[in-house]
C-alpha cells in the first residue's frame, strides 16, 4: 500500500502546477473580456455613473495597475490563505464560496443518487432483456435525456408535479421534497446516458468466455450477473462518473436559477456578469480542486475494483 500512498501524494503535488496554470488562464481571460468591474458596480440598477466616480473607484480597487501586478498581489494573498474580498458583497471570497457550496453539493449528490438509482437497474435490465420492451424504453429515455434542454425539462416538471398535481414545491431549498424536482432535472440527462453505457459494457462482458464458463459450471444467473458481469462492466461507468461529478456541479447553474436554489452556481454567474474578479478566481480554483480530487478518487477506486490496475501501478 506504500505505493498507493506515494501515488496519491504525487497526484496531490501535481495539483500545484495545475492550480497555478488554471489561475493564470482565468486571470488572463477575465482581463481580456470587456467590462469594467468599477463601472458595473456603480451602474448596478441602471443609474449611469459619472466618469470621475468610475476612475476613483478603479484606483481604489487597484484596477489601474498592470495585470501582472494585480495577479502577483492576488497570488501573494492566496499564499497567505487570503483569496480577497468580493467586489460585489464586500465579504471574503472563501466565506462566500463555502457558505453557498453545501447547497450545491446537496443538489449534486442528490442528482448523482438519482443517476445511480435510475441508470444501474435500467442498464442491467436493458442488457439482459436486449431488444425487449424495457430496452426500447431505456433507449427512448436516453434519447430524450440527451436532447431535452435542462431548463425546459425543469419547467415542465414544475408545471406538472408542482402546479398541476401539487405533489412537490415549485422552488426553493427546504426539506426532502424540495430536493426531488431539481435533482431529477439535473441528473436526468446523465442517467439516460449512463443506462446506455452500462448496457453496452454489460453486453460486452456477457459475451465473454468467463461468463460462459460461469454459466457452464451451473452458477445461478443472479451470481453471474451480479458478481461476474456487473463488476467488470462497471469500470467504464466509474470513469465517467468521476468526471461527471464535476460536470454536475457546474451544470447546476441553470437548475439553481430555475428552482431558486441558493447554491454557488448562480452566485458564480452573477459574479461573472459583474466582473467580480476575486470571486471568479476563487470559484474557478475551487472547482478545479474538486475536479482533480474527483478524478483522483476515481483512479483510486479502479484499484479497488480491478486488481489488474493495482498491479500495473505497482510495477
Amino acid at each position: 500500500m506504500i505505493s498507493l500512498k506515494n501515488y496519491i501524494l504525487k497526484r496531490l503535488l501535481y495539483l500545484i502546477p495545475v492550480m497555478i496554470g488554471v489561475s493564470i488562464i482565468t486571470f488572463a481571460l477575465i482581463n481580456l473580456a470587456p467590462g469594467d468591474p468599477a463601472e458595473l458596480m456603480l451602474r448596478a440598477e441602471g443609474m449611469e455613473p459619472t466618469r470621475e466616480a468610475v476612475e476613483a473607484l478603479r484606483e481604489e480597487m487597484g484596477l489601474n495597475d498592470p495585470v501582472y501586478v494585480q495577479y502577483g498581489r492576488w497570488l501573494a494573498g492566496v499564499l497567505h490563505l487570503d483569496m480577497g474580498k468580493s467586489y460585489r458583497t464586500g465579504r471574503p471570497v472563501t466565506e462566500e464560496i463555502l457558505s453557498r457550496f453545501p447547497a450545491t453539493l446537496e443538489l449534486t449528490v442528490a442528482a448523482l443518487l438519482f443517476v445511480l438509482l435510475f441508470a444501474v437497474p435500467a442498464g442491467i435490465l436493458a442488457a439482459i432483456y436486449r431488444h425487449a420492451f424495457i430496452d426500447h424504453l431505456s433507449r427512448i429515455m436516453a434519447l430524450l435525456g440527451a436532447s431535452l434542454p435542462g431548463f425546459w425539462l425543469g419547467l415542465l416538471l414544475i408545471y406538472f408535479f408542482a402546479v398541476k398535481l401539487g405533489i412537490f414545491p415549485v422552488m426553493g431549498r427546504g426539506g426532502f421534497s424540495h430536493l426531488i424536482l431539481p435533482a431529477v432535472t439535473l441528473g436526468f440527462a446523465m442517467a439516460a446516458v449512463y443506462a446506455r453505457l452500462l448496457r453496452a459494457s454489460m453486453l460486452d462482458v456477457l459475451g465473454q468466455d468467463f461468463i460462459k464458463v460461469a454459466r457452464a459450471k451451473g452458477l445461478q444467473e443472479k451470481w453471474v450477473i451480479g458478481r461476474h458481469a456487473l463488476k467488470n462492466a462497471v469500470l467504464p461507468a466509474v470513469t465517467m462518473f468521476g468526471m461527471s461529478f464535476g460536470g454536475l456541479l457546474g451544470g447546476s447553474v441553470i437548475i439553481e436559477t430555475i428552482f431558486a436554489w441558493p447554491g454557488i452556481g448562480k452566485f458564480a454567474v452573477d459574479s461573472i456578469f459583474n466582473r467580480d474578479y476575486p470571486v471568479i478566481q476563487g470559484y474557478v480554483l475551487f472547482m478545479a480542486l474538486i475536479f482533480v480530487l474527483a478524478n483522483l478518487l476515481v483512479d483510486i477506486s479502479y484499484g479497488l475494483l480491478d486488481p489488474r490496475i493495482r498491479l500495473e501501478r505497482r510495477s
Partner: protein
Amino acid sequence: MRLKKAVACAVITVFLMIMAVGCGNEGTKPPQEEKPLTVGWAQWCTNLDPGDGYNGWYAVEFGMGETLVKTGKKMEIEPWLAESWERVDDNTWKIKIRDSVKFHNGKDVDGAAVKASLERTIKMNKRAPGLLDIASIEAQGNEIIVKNNKPNPSFITTLADPFAVIVDAAAAEEMGDQFMENPVLTGPFKLKKYVKDERVEVVRNEDYWGEKAKQKDVVFKSIPDANTRLMALQSGEIQVADKIPAEQTATLGKDKDLKVLSESSVRVHMLIFNLKKPGLDEISVRKAINMAVNREDLAQKVMSESGIAAAGPFPAVLPFGGSGLKGYDYNVEGAKKLLDEAGWKPGGDGVRQKDGKKLEYTFLTYKNRPELPVLMEAMQSQLKEIGIKVEIKNVENASEVMESGDFEGCIYSFSTAPTGDPQYMLETVFMTGGDNNYGSYSSEKLDALGKKLQSTFDTEERNSIAREAQQVLIDDAAFAFLVYPKIITAVDKDVEGLDITPTEYYFLDSKISYKG
C-alpha cells in the same frame, strides 16, 4: 467481498453527506394564526445594510427602511421621516425630523442619529458623496442643518435615494459585520429572519411611528427565473410575483384568481446616434429616422402592451415628463420626402445614397434587457421602408463600446429620474461633454437650460425648464426616444392595498394585506 465493501462504503458516505448538508435545513413550520404574505422577487440583495451598494433598494422594498423624504405616486417629493424642510440659503438646508420616530431597537431617531446615519452612508456608499455633495451636517435637537459644497437644488430629492435610508449608525458601529444581516431601521416592518440568497422574513413593527401595518407577516423569496415566479404564483406558493414578462400577461389575465397590476416606470428605451458619423450628422436623416419609427407599434405589438410610446426622454408619469411635448408622429411618406429633399436618393438596392455614401448603419443592442434586441429588429424593418439599411450587432457592454466612440447607433435603456428630478440625466446624458453623452450631442440652447437648472430651486420652474430642454432634444432629433416600459406585477386576488409605483423600490407598506 471487496466490491461489496466499496459499494457499502460509497452508499454510507453519500448518505452521511446528504445528512450533513441537510442539517442546515429546517423542518416544517409551525402553524400560524394569520397566513403570511409571500412575495417572489426577481432581483436580490447581497446583504441587508442599506448603505452598502444598492442594498438600500431592498431595505425599502421590504418595508424595513425609510428615507427622510420619498417620491409619491406622481413622482413629487413627500415627507417621510422628515416632517418638513426649508432652504436657509443657496447652500444650506434645515430639515426637521418627525418627533415620534423610533428605531426598531427602541432608540429615538433625532437630529444626531440622522446626522450619524447620513455620514455613514457618505463614507461607505460609492455614489453618495457625489450626489449628496455635503460639506457639513449639524444636529440640533430634532433638526439637522446641512451645508452643501455648492448650490444643489436636487439635494432634497436625492435624499429619497435608498442609500440614504436612516439606520442606527451607533448600533452599526457596535455590531460590525452583524449589521449586514440584522440592520436596525425604522420602517413599518422589522426583520424576523434573513437567509442569505434565499429569503427575508419581516414582521409588523408594533411601535411604528405611523399607521400600523395591516399585514402581520411577510416573506420575500428570491426567485430569479420569471417562469418559476409565475408558476409559484399559480400554485399558491407565493401571492405576489414582480417583474412579469409582457408576453405572459395575456395568459395571466384569464386566471380568475390572479390580477395583473402595471404602471409606467421612470425608464426610457431610446436610440442614441453617434453625431460624428456621416449621415447621422445631418438633422434631416435623424428626423427621418424619428418619423419612420412606429412607436405605437413598438409599445403595443412588439412589447405586448407593456410599453408606452415615448415623446421625450422623461416618461409622462414624471411631473416634467411626456405630455405637452411635441414629439414625432409616425409618417413614412414625410420621412421619405425629407430624405429626398436632403439629396438622399434610393439606389438600385433600395438603400438611399448621396455622394457615394449610403445610409447603411450598424446599430448596437445588448441582451441585459431582453426587449431591446427585439425592439431593434422591429425598427430595422421600419427603417428599411424609408431606404435606411440597419445591421444589428449584439454587444455585451454597450456603454463601453459607445464610450470608445466606435459606433454608429445604439438602443439603450436609461433610468431617467428615479428620485423624481431631471437634473442628473440632463447633465450626464445630454449636456455637452456629459459623462454618458455617448453620441457627442452638443447644443448651446440645451447647455444653457441645464446650467439654469443647476441654480433654480423652485420646483415649478425646474419642471418647466426640464420640459423646455426636452423639446430642444426632440427638435434637434439628436436621439430617438422610443418607449417607456411598464412595471408589471402579478398578484393573488386576495391581496389588497398593493399599489405599484413608478419608482421600483417602493413596495411593502402599511396598507397591504392578504386574506388567504
